[in-house]
């Protein structure tokens, strides 16, 4: 028996000796208990929050704000199918979407809110000095406001979540939506507090600082103020006043003259190394992928690649309506301009126009290949073409290359290639998907790149900087996120809505932008507030004040393609603009082998591709809440109409 007792004792010894090995904690991994102690910890964590600012996107997709704000608007025609807004067939999604970026049509997603709250919740327990605590709280408030701004714009009422939730936070998880009034007020209050408490210079160059907060108040104030005004809500002026107040602060800091902003409109979009350039408040920087060693960390984007091809991932058909909104060089809209040449052809349409049009939509041209069958040569595609017989066909090439000496918007156009010297020479603009033949040699080689359906091709982000990152064709032009030009537009519009818009304000804002874009037509193009009357633009939406119409026009043009238009239309309650059928250039169909669809069916006329939109529903001003979220939380009420 002794033996068995010994054995049992033996097992007992082993038992007691070994239990400790079960206590294992992670090596080399941080937890929320160790991530928020020092100033450095907070800074490290906060870098992740900057991801929200998408800029030109990451990798192969088009910038998310472009897709959601421009292709959903009257600026750009979607080239696949009409959106649900236009067909009137939009329905509520079943499940909530994935993570989001700034200025997209926000998904019902609160991951980012939690990310910010996690930091905010850990400030008090940290070892920071009070001023540092205030600084990080301000940074957190800024990012959370940025996200709530998008949520508010999309859904109106949204649950306001002040702290990181757990699965037992029933009142948050299963509570009702917080009213728009409260959410908007929280955003504004948080931002105002942050403005007073953040470090003036943030955490160094191109970080969230006091200017950024003032900027966001100016942007958000205008959005919420006008939304309230045009959707019949109260307190519009609270937000408009905030917009004005903080715009003024920024304008007084950063200036409001032509020298306060970059000298070239095109350079704003196509510069590598934008940080520190005049007017730049916050920039998303891109670098060659070799930098990170992996090429997958989003250090570059692919806008140039998609501008320089005709990929399905890129929507680039600019609507005639948008082209027509650009002023003529006499400072007047096409309806009353004496220098407007009409639209018999694209060459006519582009004559004597605000030059921002040329930097946004490819001007018309037509060239000849020296050898009709050779459209590209590695490293030397440039040399393959000559001017075609008709001098008109080369007029915009000469204008862009010789007169404007444009670097990026150099014509002829060349399809993207890794060195931006080897791609196909595009033989003519317009260049139609449905007729890709070369006009000068219709039986010659067909070039499929940079073709679209309606003729007006968006190319604002096209530049000739070599691409990097091998087969990913990365572009490294930086993206302006917050810039003084937008402050000027926000300020002008907010002042108008408050009834305080004057020539002086116009000269500080709109006229600065116009002069920068059109230095040789200055002061012909100057906005003279007193001379804008009901007849200034015959094509004006008659429900909009003539001066406000011009302020909105300036916004549309200066910010064309930057991801504002859809939200602008929504806050102005102008969703109805979407139902106009998108048309393109005016052509003689015979020139294009009669392959195009002509509005009205004639031999000449405006090209169209998508059928006419069938209707905008006012319910679309707010996005539907995902069905499953409503099923999970009975206190969530769907937005009206869905």
């Amino acid at each position: 028996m002794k033996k068995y007792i010994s054995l049992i004792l033996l097992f007992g010894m082993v038992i007691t000796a070994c239990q400790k090995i079960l206590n294992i904690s992670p090596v080399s991994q941080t937890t929320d208990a160790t991530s928020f102690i020092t100033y450095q910890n907070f800074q490290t964590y906060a870098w992740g929050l900057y991801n929200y600012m998408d800029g030109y996107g990451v990798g192969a997709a088009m910038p998310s704000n472009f897709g959601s704000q421009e292709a959903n608007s009257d600026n750009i025609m979607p080239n696949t199918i009409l959106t649900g807004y236009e067909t009137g067939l939009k329905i509520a999604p079943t499940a909530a979407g994935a993570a989001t970026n700034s200025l997209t049509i926000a998904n019902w997603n609160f991951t980012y809110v939690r990310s910010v709250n996690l930091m905010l919740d850990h400030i008090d327990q940290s070892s920071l000095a009070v001023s540092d605590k205030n600084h990080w709280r301000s940074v957190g408030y800024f990012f959370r406001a940025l996200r709530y701004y998008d949520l508010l714009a999309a859904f109106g009422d949204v649950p306001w979540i002040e702290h990181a939730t757990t699965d037992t936070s029933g009142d948050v998880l299963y509570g009702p939506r917080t009213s728009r009034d409260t959410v908007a007020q929280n955003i504004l209050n948080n931002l105002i507090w942050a403005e007073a408490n953040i470090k003036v210079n943030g955490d160094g160059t191109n970080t969230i600082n006091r200017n950024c907060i003032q900027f966001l108040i100016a942007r958000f104030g205008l959005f919420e103020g006008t939304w309230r005004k045009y959707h019949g809500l109260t307190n519009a002026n609270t937000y408009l006043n905030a917009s004005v107040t903080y715009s003024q602060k920024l304008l007084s800091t950063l200036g409001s003259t032509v020298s306060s902003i970059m000298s070239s409109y095109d350079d704003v979009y196509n510069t590598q190394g934008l940080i520190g350039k005049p007017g730049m408040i916050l920039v998303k920087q891109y670098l060659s992928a070799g930098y990170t060693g992996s090429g997958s960390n989003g250090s570059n984007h692919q806008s140039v690649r998609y501008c320089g091809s005709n990929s399905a991932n890129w929507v680039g058909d600019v609507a005639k309506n948008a082209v027509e909104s650009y002023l003529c060089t006499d400072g007047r809209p096409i309806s009353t301009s004496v220098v407007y040449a009409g639209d018999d052809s694209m060459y006519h349409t582009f004559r004597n126009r605000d030059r921002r049009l040329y930097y946004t939509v490819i001007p018309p041209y037509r060239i000849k290949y020296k050898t009709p069958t050779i459209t590209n040569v590695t490293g030397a595609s440039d040399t393959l073409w000559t001017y075609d017989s008709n001098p008109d066909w080369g007029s915009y090439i000469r204008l862009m290359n010789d007169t404007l000496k444009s670097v990026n918007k150099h014509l002829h156009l060349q399809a993207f290639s890794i060195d931006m010297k080897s791609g196909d020479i595009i033989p003519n603009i317009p260049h139609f998907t449905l007729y890709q033949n070369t006009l000068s040699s219709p039986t010659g080689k067909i070039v499929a790149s940079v073709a679209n359906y309606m003729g007006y091709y968006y190319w604002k982000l096209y530049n000739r900087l070599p691409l990097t990152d091998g087969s990913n064709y990365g572009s490294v032009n930086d993206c302006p996120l917050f810039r003084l030009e937008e402050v000027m537009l926000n300020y002008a519009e907010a002042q108008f809505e408050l009834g305080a818009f004057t020539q002086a304000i116009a000269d500080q804002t709109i006229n600065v932008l116009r002069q920068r874009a059109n230095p040789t037509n200055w002061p012909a193009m100057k906005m003279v507030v007193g001379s804008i009357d009901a007849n200034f633009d015959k094509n004006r939406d008659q429900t909009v004040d003539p001066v406000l119409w011009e302020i909105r026009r300036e916004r549309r043009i200066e910010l064309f393609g930057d991801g504002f238009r859809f939200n602008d239309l929504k806050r102005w309650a102008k969703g109805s603009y979407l139902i106009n059928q998108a048309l393109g250039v005016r052509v003689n169909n015979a020139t294009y082998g009669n392959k195009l669809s002509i509005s009205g069916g004639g031999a000449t006329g405006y090209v169209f591709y998508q059928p006419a939109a069938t209707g905008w529903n006012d319910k679309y001003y707010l996005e539907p809440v995902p069905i499953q979220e409503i099923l999970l939380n009975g206190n969530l009420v769907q937005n009206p109409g869905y």
Partner: protein
Amino acid sequence: MKLTAKMRSSKDSGFIDSSDSHALLCKTIKIMKLSAVLLLLSFQIYAGTYSQNVSLSEKNVKLTKVLDAIEKKTGLYFWYDQLLLDKTEPVTISCHNLPWNEVLSSILHPQGLNFNMENGTIVITRKPLTMPDSLTIAMPIPPLKITGVVKDPDGNPLQGASVRIKGASSGVVSNAYGIFKISANEGEVLEITVIGYKPFTTVIHSNNNDLIVVMQTDVANLNDIVVVGYGTQKKTNVIGSITTVKMDDVLGDRPVTEVSNLLQGAAPGLLVTINSGQPGAPQSSTTNLNIRGGTDFTGNTLNNSSPFIVMDNIPFNGSLSLIDPSDIESVTVLKDAGSAAIYGARSAFGVILITTKKGHKNQKAQFSYSNNFVTSTVAELPQKATPTQFIQQYIDGGNLTYQGQSTSIWQTQLAAYQTNPKSYPGGYTIQNGVYMQLAPTDALKQFLGSSANQQMHNFSVSGGNDKTTYRLSFGTSTENGIIVPEAHQDYFNRYNLKSIITTDVNPWLNLQVDAGFNSSTGAQPFYQVGIASDAFQQISNITPLVPLDTVPGIGVVSSPKYWVMNTAPINTTSNESRITGRAVLKPVRGLTITGEYTIDRFNTLVNTYDKYATGVTYTGAATSVGTSGGVYTKQNGLTNYNAINLFGTYNRSFGLHNTTLMIGFNQEQSHAESTTASRGQLINPSIPSLNTAVSTTPTASDSYTDYANIGYFGRLNYDYKNKYLFQVNGRFDGSSKFPDGHRWGFFPSASAGWRVMEENFTKMLKPYLNEFKIRGSWGNVGNQNISAYSYNGIMSPSVPYWLNNGTQVETVNQPTQIISPNYTWETVSTLDFGADWGIIKNHLTGSFDWYKRDTKGILTNNAVQLPVTLGTGAPLVNAGSLESKGVEIQLNWKDKIGKVNYYFGINLSDYQTVVTNVPNATNVLSSLYTGQKMGNIWGFVTDRLYTVNDFVAGSLDANLKNGVLLPGIPKTYNTSNSSIQAPNPGDILYKDLDKNDTINIGQNTLTNHGDKKIIGNSTPRYQFGINGGVSYKNFDFSFVLVGVGKQDQWIANDMTFPNYWAGQSTLYSNELNYWTPTQTNAYYGRIYTTTGVPVGTGVPAANQDVQTRFLLNGAYLRVKNLTLRYNFPEKVLKASHLTKLQLFFTMEDPFIFDHMPKGVYPDVVRSGSGSGGGQGYPFMKKNSVGLNLSF
């Protein structure tokens, strides 16, 4: 000899197989202490005085009882063979104060027994070969008296061997020493049979009347010893659901290097899924082992439901592809909880026990060598449509141009080429300066070589004397893949070295060292795996009009093959050293204590060179793959694992009551870490390394995983007359993966069995029904297969998409899920009823099992539905339960007709799993819901195609698009972007089940699912394996078939839909029947090529929604192996001093019978995607020849 006799007997009575004894390696101080205690314990046992006298009085009692009494009184320790004593007569003794040796003499000598003292132990043996009179068999006196000994291969005597003269009606039986005596005439044939061994025959000569017969084990016999958890059992006494596979049976001479591949179809209920024909594929986790299926809680299961793999008692953590199958003796699959539960924590989804080969005692050194030379060719490939058909499809889709040339010119030129191919010597033309490929190209064929080679060699030597056994083996295999063979970037090589040595230090201690080293190197083209979507998927898009070689004026153009030739492979090296030391102590009779310590070191090294390569496309445009400047990445992983097992087994019989008690302790610790370093800008692409990369910003990262388990376990077996069998198991387990306070779990199980044929009332059936056993078990097992540290809110580092003023910064992400502090073990309880039988002289053997497995408290966060306002993943909680029910049948027939021996076996398994509980409050179908049958496929019911008549007359344009639907005709819903779309004629119209004029998915919940319904189930039903063979004279032939009886598969890719990626796709010959204005009665819907829209945004996506029409039948039958073998006759062997020489020819994976389009396989999937067949590494047909020889 004495000791081995002892061991044999313990084996037979269902005890620990002590020939597995291993030495205990004292690695840590703790272990040192342990062994010290053990030694001390052993010394105590015989340290008492034994020179005393004995007083004793017993009447008619068992000899063992007398010995026990003497043992108690004197402190003497006896060592004997239980069987030896079982056969003795009862003893009557009365003595007073006699010396112990006199007492022993008086009781042992009359019984034919001897004794002597060795190292303080009294060892009882039989008297040397003088036959006891009592064993003389009464027979008519023949001319010759034959005496012999029957032994097993280990040299242990075999009792009960039936010995007879061939043709005679009766014979004799060997006694406890294996000795028999029989009379025979010269020239007669003596036949000896023992159940479990191959029959032995010999011709009687006058000079061989003193025979030593060594019986050879018969592997397929019912009376096998099977390996069970921490021990062995006689197969007849097994009451769990266990299947044993002898590796030599399934391996045979197959050209297969991988264990799991061999197990496919070999055991019912063991489901082996092989998804790829890639060499060494299992290392890339495309091979999946699963016992009884139905364990995944969600598609992306959190819980690893793989079976627990144990090799010689020690968990095996590496990849099975590292093991040389030739080193494996048997694989035992423990399926029910009753048999698996002894492994506790990790056995929830069954256990696979691998037993390696060992040497045998008293065996002459045996040298074996085998080789196998293999030629692999690709099995059937998908067939692209012809160029003409392809261009026609482009035109039908509304596309005007292709490759910069109008589609009408393409048509004309292709037609001209068809008429007179000879006038186009290069198979191309140039029109308008555009190169036009006219002869069809096939990128896949170009990518794959015509054949690849493989070689396997295995050499082993084994043997032993009466104290020591050894086995040493060395094996190599080199397997080349089929991807661009000339690049030699696709291979898997392995070598294995293994040795096992056991020795009896003394009668009570056996030490063992088992050491193995496995090493593999493999490579895969970077182009195949390093690119965003794998090569096979990319290649499947390439049209037959894309030039692949040389284009005039441009030169060599880039093609998949070109990229492989110009990039560098990803090299993977794995090394594993595994050493086990074991000590087996037998301190007292019936008790065996085994201590083992294993250290297992596993290293992997992965070198990836993302080489930058440039090329030109067929249009002359510059193109490239890889990262500019190149990036070299080295990933180094180390797993350091150690395990301690300490267990004791005690068996004792009380009359007809036999009991065995086993208790034990097990501890595992694993530490894994890996380091990854990466650096760009290589200065010399031909010497890729971190040193030759000059980027100033190299990146590096590391990761660690540690876990530990502790378990205490016990098992009690009891049987009465080997007829009524019972077993209870208990295990108490702790795991480091759970939060403190929730770490420990207790998991019991119980089994019972009844051998019906041992009853008196079934005796009359015995000639027909030789064996019939009914058994049942129930058990509860825990599962902890979650990642380590799950209860910590890990914030992983990442590089944000934000550059801080020109510098790269790092950040940490918020935890991906919140932490619930209360989660603990998931429990799996299994109820199993089964039967085993042997009919008609055991010609027909088989087993049947029915089981129900309930998985409760499933550790998951996937299934928990929380509002997204939470902002992160739901916590890991014990939520939800599953119930699987299944059956398994195995039947084997073995017989001979004349000189033809044949066998045939089939095994079949089937199961279905139902979600019995899940926290899906809204019953949304995107998640699991309570009552759901796993594998259900929800989809639309295809009605027909929209026709022109469904639209308002005149509303359609010239292309039959953009029309206005007539009232009452349902609109189309597009699930991929949740929108309603206006269809065009030719689009697919689904049945409007909810009659709301819109095809929709409602709220996508169980109660409101719009027009979707369950249209099929993807669970593979009736999975079977069939094997058989015949042998005639020196030839034998065998085959292995595997398959699935019923399965639905939804496969959406280029091979199953015409122009799957609108405008970026090609066309396959099985996809020609699509809608056009003139072909309205088509199988496929309208195709769209003009928009270039990827699937998911346009109408094509709606046409490709999951639906009844295109649901594929996944049933198949695959011929895994055919082997033809020639055994050289004995004459040849004798002349060449060989004991065996075989030549063989085998075919692996030669055929498959299925219902899929050509080149699409029900069992091949695209790597990294579950989307189905046709885009993965194809299976290879392997033809091989080789030889086996032994001497």
